[in-house]
């Protein structure tokens, strides 16, 4: 059977991921309500939203693990329904669960998937080296720390050298050092031309890593843009009584006093210039809204509510 040719975008560049009216219904419940977006090659794209927003269902559909109820989607130019095998050959997924074989060594875990994908024999050792666990390659995975398992999962996600890598909550449960290391690897992947689609609860992480983000709420995309544009969009609007000034900065002076300066107030701006000239400023921090603020403004709910719900449900 011949592979169907990759679908080409009207712009002439085949998008790494293209989603058009994607719909998923479970009985009466619409988990994903006809979402559309396109991710160009080499971009880190974030899918953000609360629990039940439709992130995981979208990833499941894009990775060919559940069929959509409606709409179309392609990965690497291959339709996820009509050319599922071809689409799967150009993508990979780092699961949220640390679904590794505990009784096998790290190397055997990786080699298993290398053999399944038909990867070159030296790919296993190369990836173990790349994610920094080559020294532990011969140890059984059940002896690994959470951070080491996450690195191994990332190596498994790269075993077939995917054009598109899906990362599902990649830093959840990791210590700050492991999370920082993993984010560094994601940046390297982007620099190497790999497209990364990331789902996360962590808005700081999304802000740091993603070129563009889509906010999902109740199965719909309520906003899609670069983090900077999204923040500006909210900043230019009403941010509520907690933030009466539109643009301001927090300044720490040499005498250890902290001042808040409204940047759109000419008098305060002049004072800021004077402090700079006098060399009195130790640090300046902008007081722009975070992506979490943006999400609250757009979705009308906080991501923290989900964490509280999860905690209560777990009791």
């Amino acid at each position, binding site marked *: 059977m011949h592979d169907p040719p990759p679908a080409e975008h009207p712009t002439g560049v085949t998008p790494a991921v293209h989603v058009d009216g994607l719909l998923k219904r479970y009985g009466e419940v619409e988990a994903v309500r006809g979402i559309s977006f396109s991710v160009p090659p080499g971009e880190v794209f974030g899918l953000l939203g609360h629990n039940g927003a439709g992130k995981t269902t979208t990833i*499941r559909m894009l*990775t*060919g*693990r*559940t*069929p959509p109820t409606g709409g179309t989607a392609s990965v690497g130019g291959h339709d996820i329904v009509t050319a599922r095998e071809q689409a*799967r050959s150009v993508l*990979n*997924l780092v*699961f949220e*669960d640390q*679904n*590794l*074989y*505990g*009784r*096998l060594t790290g190397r*055997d875990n990786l080699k*298993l*998937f290398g*053999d*399944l*994908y*038909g990867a070159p024999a030296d790919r296993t050792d190369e990836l173990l080296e790349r994610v920094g666990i080559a020294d532990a390659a011969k140890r059984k995975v059940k002896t690994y720390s959470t951070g080491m398992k996450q690195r191994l999962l990332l190596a*498994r996600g790269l075993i*077939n050298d995917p054009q598109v890598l899906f990362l599902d909550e990649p830093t959840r449960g990791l210590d700050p050092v492991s999370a920082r290391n993993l984010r560094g690897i994601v940046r390297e992947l982007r620099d190497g031309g790999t497209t990364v689609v990331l789902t996360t609860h962590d808005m700081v992480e999304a802000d740091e890593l993603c070129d563009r983000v889509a906010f999902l709420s109740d199965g719909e995309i309520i906003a899609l843009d670069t983090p900077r544009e999204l923040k500006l969009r909210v900043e230019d609007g009403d941010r509520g009584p907690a933030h009466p000034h539109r643009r301001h900065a927090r300044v720490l002076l040499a005498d250890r006093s902290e001042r808040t300066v409204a940047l759109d107030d000419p008098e305060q701006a002049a004072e800021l210039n004077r402090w700079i000239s006098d060399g009195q400023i130790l640090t300046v921090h902008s007081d722009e809204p975070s992506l979490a603020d943006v999400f609250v403004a757009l979705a009308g709910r906080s991501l923290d509510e989900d964490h509280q719900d999860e905690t209560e449900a777990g009791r």
Partner: protein
Amino acid sequence: MNLQRLWTILRKDLVDAIRDGRVLAVILIPIALGVFYGLIYPDEEPRPTATVVVVGSSADADRIATTLPRDVSRALELKIERASDAAEAKTTVADDDADIAVVVPDGYLAAASGNGAPPPLQAFIGTQPSPSAQAVANLLPATVDRLAERPPGSALAVETVEPVSQSAFDALGMRTFFVIAAVVMLLGFIGMLATPIILAEEIEKRTIEALLLAARGSEVLTAKALVGLIYSAVASAITILATGITIERPGLFLLGAAGLAISVVGLGLGMAYLFRSADKLNTWGWVLLMPLLIPAFLVSVDGSQVVDIIVQATPTGQGMRLMVDGALSSDVFGGVGLALAVFVVWGGGGMLVLGRLLQTRGS
């Protein structure tokens, strides 16, 4: 189906599953049980017994009934029963309630005395006589000659009798019967506990999600089934070789074992998706397995029609029947076609449930 991917998953499972203590225990327990049966039941009983029916109420019949046990006592322990007519004696042999029956006409010993050819003494013996029955048939003429005070040479006119039914127990002996029962148990354990534990652990730990991203559902499923079948084949071979039981018709024995193994592996894989947890399966799988193993032991019971239906409708019952027949030189049960149909229905049912579940999961 990609054979390279299938082999990769199979190879991983063969090595990985045996490291799981639950799987290892499930395989080793029935092997140990089979070897135990082989040891506690000796190959031959020290002093074989036989039941002889003496037909007739004459003084000659009484003398033969009294003298024969003494004459053969060094070789056999005889149980003598009496019957009033030849038809009754023939039925007793056919029902396998006696090894041999001897019809002693009135005045036989007088007629047999002297130097001329004695009149034939009629006897009934099964088509597959036990060594004890054969021994009685061989020794009886000498007793008759002595009682008739004639030189040795009396002849028996032996007529074989087709048995109405023969129990597996009697046909095989306890040792072989219980070793085969242990093999059925082994196949049940591997098919309905070890194999589903392997799959359920993958589901529970979500490693199957990663496998299904890299391979087709049919490849994953076939690999799991093959692991169960390979473990079954190796463990059965070890049990049979370790106990040294004789298999007269290996082809039929293999057909029964393979059919049962395929059937319970298919059923077990379906169970894995219902339980979705290796620990739950390890705890509750036994509850389903035990009732399914009982029919294997019921094949030796000459019971009611209900028992017979249960035995014939279950894969373990049918597997045991085929394996018992395979261990003998002729059929005790027969019915290969029905056995295969039962295997297909049970195994296919389990695989259909699993296939449907995998399909709905988009794999």
